């Protein structure tokens, strides 16, 4: 049974068995990943997969079910499952199936050139990067991760109201982590590159970046535990933003789980702070012309000059708050119910280079990485206490790597304490981007 036959039959049968409205969401993807270890291919993975999510309005409530087994018998599984799930809900989901936006942007997220790059070339590239990292410095003892991965996927959304959307995207990610050793001191440094343009990947430059990242963290020193001015490097800043992005979701404010409840129009951050979401930002690897409900997406300011302009909405939360959806319904896969999330959320860059930012701090800490974000940060209270890696800044210059440390504060205070924004905006694979930021102070504890 082809997927098209399956979809048509499913929608038709659903409408004949009590569903008032119904939608199917199908994804098909392919990926390739190669990891090398000391010049040899250590692991080589390929995949081809697909799955289908179904949702439908049954007795006024929205039931969901999904399957990865596309066969005749799955039609009954999906219909019965979605009905049972609708029945157990305590109230109307408050939403219905969307008939479609009037127009959609036509951004392209798929590169034919990338799709044509031979596997052998990709393997040669990652092997060459690995060799160049080892050759860079004798203190590089091993690479604990040296991987190249590419993916392509196609999404199709169709419903009984005539909506039919589809989109393709692809991309390539390189992740390398090197272990360096000097005497008893052992450190790691990593680097991630993502692109849709294979030709722009420069093995030499990538090797240098990861080697320098690891080597520079040697020679660590302890410094006194106290509050310090902080520079969050772009990647550390993006990972903190990603962790706290749920506070901007209307789903969370409506559930009483975000302190931004009732704050639209209010000042929540420093004047210079601009937070945007751009589903088609050219520097990000993911993108989409429509959201998880089929609503056309567009670039939006979430925080403008420190003022909260809007929360992130889907059609259900927008209806509840009496506003128009912002196109932030997220279906992270056919396995998911709808939730709310940005696509490419980023902090707008300023004018100063990273070096200028460092020079502007007399004494402080330059944070290059955060760990424990899944457990040491609460989106409900805004409190965070996280393990961090970075450098001591003295007299406007990097003085030395700092021993293991934690930084602690509250995200809502942090937003207000942003003093300066750098020009070095970069996106992370998860779709969050930031330039480096100077923050007034955070509590720093050093081992």
């Amino acid at each position: 049974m082809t997927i098209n036959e399956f979809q048509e039959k499913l929608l038709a049968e659903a409408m004949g068995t009590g569903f008032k409205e119904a939608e199917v969401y199908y994804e098909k993807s392919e990926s390739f990943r190669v990891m090398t270890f000391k010049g040899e291919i250590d692991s080589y993975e390929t995949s081809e997969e697909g799955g289908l999510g179904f949702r439908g309005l049954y007795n006024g409530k929205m039931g969901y079910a999904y399957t990865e087994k596309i066969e005749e018998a799955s039609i009954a599984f999906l219909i019965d499952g979605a009905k049972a799930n609708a029945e157990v809900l305590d109230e109307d989901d408050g939403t219905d199936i969307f008939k479609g936006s009037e127009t959609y942007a036509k951004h392209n997220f798929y590169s034919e050139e990338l799709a044509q790059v031979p596997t052998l070339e990709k393997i040669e590239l990652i092997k060459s990067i690995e060799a160049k990292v080892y050759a860079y410095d004798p203190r590089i003892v091993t690479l604990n991760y040296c991987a190249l991965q590419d993916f392509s996927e196609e999404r199709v959304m169709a419903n009984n109201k005539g909506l039919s959307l589809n989109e393709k995207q692809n991309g390539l990610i390189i992740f390398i982590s090197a272990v360096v050793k000097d005497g008893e001191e052992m450190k790691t440094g990593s680097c991630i590159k993502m692109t849709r343009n294979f030709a722009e990947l420069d093995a030499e430059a990538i090797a240098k970046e990861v080697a320098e990242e690891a080597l520079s963290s040697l020679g660590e020193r302890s410094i006194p535990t106290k509050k310090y001015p902080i520079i969050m490097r772009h990647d550390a800043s993006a990972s903190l933003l990603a962790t706290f992005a749920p506070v901007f979701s209307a789903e969370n404010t409506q559930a009483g789980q975000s302190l931004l409840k009732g704050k639209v129009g209010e000042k929540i951050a420093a004047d210079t702070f601009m937070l945007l979401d751009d589903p088609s930002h050219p520097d990000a690897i993911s993108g989409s012309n429509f959201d998880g409900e089929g609503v056309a997406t567009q670039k939006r300011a979430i925080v403008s000059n420190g003022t909260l302009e809007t929360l992130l909405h889907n059609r259900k939360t927008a209806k509840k708050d009496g506003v128009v959806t912002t196109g932030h319904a997220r279906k992270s896969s056919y396995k998911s119910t709808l939730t709310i999330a940005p696509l490419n959320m980023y902090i707008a860059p300023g004018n100063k280079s990273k070096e200028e930012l460092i020079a502007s701090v007399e004494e402080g800490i330059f944070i290059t990485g955060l760990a424990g974000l899944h457990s040491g940060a609460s989106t409900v209270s805004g409190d965070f206490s996280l393990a961090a890696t970075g450098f001591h800044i003295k007299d406007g210059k990097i003085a030395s790597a700092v021993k293991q440390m934690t930084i602690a504060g509250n995200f809502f205070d942090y937003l207000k304490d942003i003093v300066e924004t750098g020009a070095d905006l970069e996106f992370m694979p998860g779709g969050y981007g930031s330039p480096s930021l100077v923050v007034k102070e955070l509590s720093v504890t050093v081992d």
Partner: protein
Amino acid sequence: MIKQSIIENVLEAALSTGGDFSEVFIEDKFMNMMELQGGKIEKSISGRDFGIGIRIFSGLQSIYTYTTDFSEEGLINAAKRAALAIKGGGSGTIHPLQKETVSAIHKIVQMPQTVEHARKAAVMKKANEIARNYDARIKQAELRYIDEEQNVLIANSEGKFVEDTRVHSRLSIQAIASDGIEMQTGFYGPGAHAGFEFIENLDLNHYAGEAARIAVTMLKADECPSGKFPVIIDNEFGGVIFHEACGHGLEATSVAKNNSVFANRIGEKVAPDIVTYIDDGTLPNEWGSLNIDDEGEKTRKNVLIEDGILKGYLVDKFNARRMNTEATGSSRRQSYRFNPTSRMTNTYIAPGKSMPEEIIASTEHGIYAKYMGGGSVNPATGDYNFAVAEAYLVKDGKIDRPVRGATLIGNGAKTLQLVDMVGNNLGHGAGMCGSISGSLPVNVGQPMIRVSEITVGGTKGE
């Protein structure tokens, strides 16, 4: 799930270019998930995951491919495409498949797929009531119920052919307390390798009550001081520190490539005499238990550290080649989407002799971590971090006021050396562990432990 003759043909196609081992992993999984918010069931979804993973070894090269296409033609093509990554070499042979019967150690009474949603919802609502009624400051509770029935079939070119059904049930309770200005949360998430009987028999007063109590307690907690302190870590989920601090470093995933501080140290003293560290996948119905691992090997009790001496690692079939040793029934993967590797199951520190009261009474000034949050580790260096969900100051041998925002950082190998008291109250806690082969149910456990010094990161200076 798929005819034996097709599996044999796939195993053969996988070895067509000279690989020396091939394996097929078929997964057919049914799941239900429900979420309750504001007293109402707001989300409910069911689904079926189905896919096939094919693995080929050629010496120290591992090829993995997976697909959701279950036609014979599709599978043979996938195997052949994967085999193209191997360049010539030896010629692997297929041994006739010998069906093994799995002795089910973990008895499942009520398969969750046969239980109506309404009964599951009723438990969630009851837990919600308990949390909400605990204190007027509890403004919200968010509950999540999940069950999974994972059917697997594992066959390989050595003649292994084995099937198993894994059933997991879990109820997670998050309570949110607010005094009108601030908000704090408390969490408890019991889970088991068991059916709906586990959920129906849960002591909800305890679990939902504790989630609510933690949230309210943290609302009135002071900022945690930072510095180096003796730290008492309570039992059950407290074991997450050793999961991060040394468990990951004992997995062949990092040991085989010398990317672990514990590599090449069998027989060495790595901890004080009072520390014995065990990974045991056979504990009846525990969250991290399995009859067989994801390579089809029987799980077992692996003593990793005995009386402070490093005894062994957790090893999977592929890394066993690099290490020139045997697999230990520790190979796991989240689903057919993942190439399996060595992972923990139920890991715990064996009980010692100290009474918990005695441990607290003998601590003059320190931190008592009653409930831990999660954490992470860099396996290459052993540097770990994790969050404390409920912490107290200890003063003059007594538990003093609650403090919040405590994060513990340190180095696993060093922290292990600093364990100076081990309690007699072993308990296990359920968690999810994320690593290279996906997110897996694991138990972390321990009795109450004291570490003579850990760096505590907080918001308040010394």
